[in-house]
């Protein structure tokens, strides 16, 4: 293993020079797609190399976990796929889903139980889990017709999105893969890719740098001077962190989408101007969209269907409120088992419930005309609530209050 650790490590999209290597490697694929052909083998080799360099060097211990994880999920998904061609018992489906979730459950609970990170973990395990579990669910629904181990691994480990999404769905992904985009369509995708790359550079290497590397350390430093007491600096931490989080993640997602486009795959977008949302529900339709839609489709909707079928609730509003709370609390736990992630989920669940109630109440009792002013107020409230919830999410309050300085 030591030779592995001595190799250089290249985090995905970590430095500007990474893009030089990546774009050179992608170029032959682009030329080939332009002439109407996919270079399947070349793509596999390039993907393998880039993934290899994400998980070697100082991250080398994670490589074994990644390999073990991929083997395990492939066996589960393929096993279930073959089973599903013949039978469709609910018990088997739940068992397979649970088994597929098992690694991430262990990884997320280990720090809270044992006090250190699980050896099973690796960068991107969450995103691979979403893809694997999603495939099992789509298989159950009969939406997956065409699957073998190679196609599954190609989807699971799709290089541009491996460590942090966006989260694609197997059915959509495989449809892109079966065909080669027309020259006209591909040029359109390349045009978008170039634009996204440059917006991504602005977000990640300029704005996220300013927020995250220049301002954030400063305001944190100031705020910690007053620890464990609150100060106005904590407010500054909240806003600066929100800027850092957004520009860093949105920049990253733009890179992933752009590189996917160059490789002829239309990976879905992850952000759509989240901070202009007029309520929290709209926010979740604009923020980390592939995650939020995944949760909506596979947790919220599934729960609503199940509960309606079994008549667990008489009142539809109570049903949706419970579903919101479950949805967001699961999301909180998924981020990690710490008080601040769980509280973050709880806050967003509550906000969705209150938002629904307010919209109903407004429709019934108040007759407010929507105009620029009300929209502005709504955006202001939503934005500030979100920033506050990010402060919780950040865990800075944990550092401020509970870590001894």
């Amino acid at each position, binding site marked *: 293993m030591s030779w592995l650790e*001595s190799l*250089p490590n290249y985090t995905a999209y970590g430095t500007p020079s990474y893009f030089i290597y990546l774009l050179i490697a992608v170029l032959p694929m682009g030329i080939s797609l332009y002439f109407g052909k996919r270079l399947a083998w070349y793509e596999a080799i390039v993907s393998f190399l880039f993934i290899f360099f994400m998980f070697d060097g*100082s991250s080398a211990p994670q490589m074994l976990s990644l390999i073990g994880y991929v083997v395990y999920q492939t066996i589960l998904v393929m096993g279930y796929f073959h089973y599903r061609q013949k039978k469709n018992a609910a018990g088997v489906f739940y068992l397979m889903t649970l088994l597929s979730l098992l690694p991430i459950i262990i990884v997320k609970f280990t720090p809270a139980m044992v006090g250190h990170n699980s050896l099973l973990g690796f960068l991107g395990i969450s995103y691979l889990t979403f893809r694997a579990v999603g495939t099992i669910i789509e298989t159950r629904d009969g939406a997956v017709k065409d699957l073998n181990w190679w196609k599954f691994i190609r989807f699971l480990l799709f290089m541009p999105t491996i460590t942090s999404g966006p989260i694609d769905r197997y059915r959509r992904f495989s449809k892109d893969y079966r065909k080669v985009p027309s020259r006209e369509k591909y040029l359109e995708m*390349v*045009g978008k890719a170039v634009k996204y790359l440059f917006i991504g550079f602005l977000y990640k290497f300029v704005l996220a740098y300013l927020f995250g590397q220049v301002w954030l*350390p400063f305001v944190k430093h100031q705020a910690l*001077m007053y620890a464990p007491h609150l100060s106005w600096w904590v407010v500054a931490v909240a806003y600066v962190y929100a800027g850092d989080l957004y520009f860093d993640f949105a920049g990253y997602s733009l890179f992933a989408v752009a590189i996917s486009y160059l490789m002829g795959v239309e990976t879905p977008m992850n952000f759509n101007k989240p901070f202009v949302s007029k309520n929290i529900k709209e926010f979740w339709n604009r923020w980390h969209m592939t995650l939020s839609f995944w949760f909506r489709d596979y947790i919220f909707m599934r729960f609503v269907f199940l509960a309606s079928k079994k008549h667990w609730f008489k009142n539809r509003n109570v049903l949706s409120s419970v579903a919101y709370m479950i949805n967001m609390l699961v999301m909180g736990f998924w981020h990690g088992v710490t008080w601040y992630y769980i509280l973050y989920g709880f806050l967003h669940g509550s906000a969705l419930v209150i938002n629904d109630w307010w919209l109903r109440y407004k429709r019934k009792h108040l007759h407010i005309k929507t105009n620029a002013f009300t929209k502005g107020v709504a955006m202001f409230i939503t934005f500030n609530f979100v920033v506050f919830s990010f402060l919780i999410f950040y865990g800075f309050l944990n550092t401020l209050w509970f870590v*001894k300085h």
Partner: protein
Amino acid sequence: MNNRRKLWSIFGPVIVACLLVLGFFALPWSSSHSQATLQKAADSLSPRVFKNSSIKVAAMQDKKKNYIPFFGSSELNRMDRYHPAVMAARYHNYTPFLFGSRGTQSLPQLFNMTMMAPEMKNGKAVYIISPQWFVKEGVMPSAFKYYNGTYANLTWLKQANPDSPYDRYTAKRLVKLLGAEGSVANYAKKIADGKHLSSWDRTRIDMESTLLKHEDELFSGWFLKDNYNDRIKPRINELPKTYSYSALTKEAISDAKHSSNNNRFGILNQFYDRRVKGHLKDIPGSQKHYSYLKSPEYADLEVVLNQLKKTNTNVVFMITPVNAKWEKMTGLSMPMYYQTANKIKYQLRSQGFNNIVDYSHDGGKPGFMEDTIHIGWAGWVNFDHRIAPFLEQKQPQPHYHMNKAFLSSEWQNLNPTTANLNQFTKDHLDK
């Protein structure tokens, strides 16, 4: 549009932009900083100056002004009439170049020094040590990151020697404080493990350093905080023309009295109103459990000392006092404070760093402190009086002899009782 036009409209602007950027950074821009910029930078306390190289290198090379680096932390920002920068401008043949703000403890200073190591060779320097640095966790990662930059890290990495215990220790600290992510951490990890950087690593470091160097030369001089014109220069002529230590002390004490008359601690009025008054009820006993005796900071200080030996810098140290009246209320243990000073002095003296101004006992003298833990007024006058002769007159060559036992966790965690120090001497120094 045909496809070729389409391709050009997609990639044309990118190609043009790349050429422009490359051209911009590759052109040999003149990098000289004006005298005015250097003077401004010397008192700006700016993290940008701290993290970069070109300005301080230019200042240290400057023959006219005789800049001398003053390494310290927040006390450097106490710019009253008797601040070393004002005193030097009025009475001495040197100009302090101030390096430090809140949070610049030994490790940030090491990287700062590394960026001007050739210029510090055989020169003189002042190093102000605050016992408050020596907390159990050492320098806070947030503070470290604020004063640390990639350019400095790469410069340090280029000269780091994996066979040196000092460099391995520094690399380990770097990984710990920056986190294991990123290329700097990757290189530092290698040094920490005692491995040499590969020639490919070096090529990449050189390439990135070159870009950062140009960036530094082009932009570091912009928008510097103008402490010199706002807070230093107007005060120079407020000082009497001829130097008299006793007259200045008298004047400083009376200044202190006037400026600190709204509280019983002798704290500057504005500081008291802004920072103390609101929290008065939380203060009694709040520092009872503080201890500066065990800290990684001792080993961090050791790598700074090693750097000063490498550059053969003749250095005078100052150990800062605390406001005695104030600490009586906070409950800070003064015996602990004196012990901390003793541990620091032991570390300095046993390796040949003998020029030490220890103020740990002086925080009760009239007008000595400007606020709770920062020297001012009569304190500055005395400081100037003690260091100016050292800086102005020719000094004998220093003879430093480093001992890596001061990097050990044994030393970091040693309770410096006389018996323990004697034992440490026997175990590690008498060889």
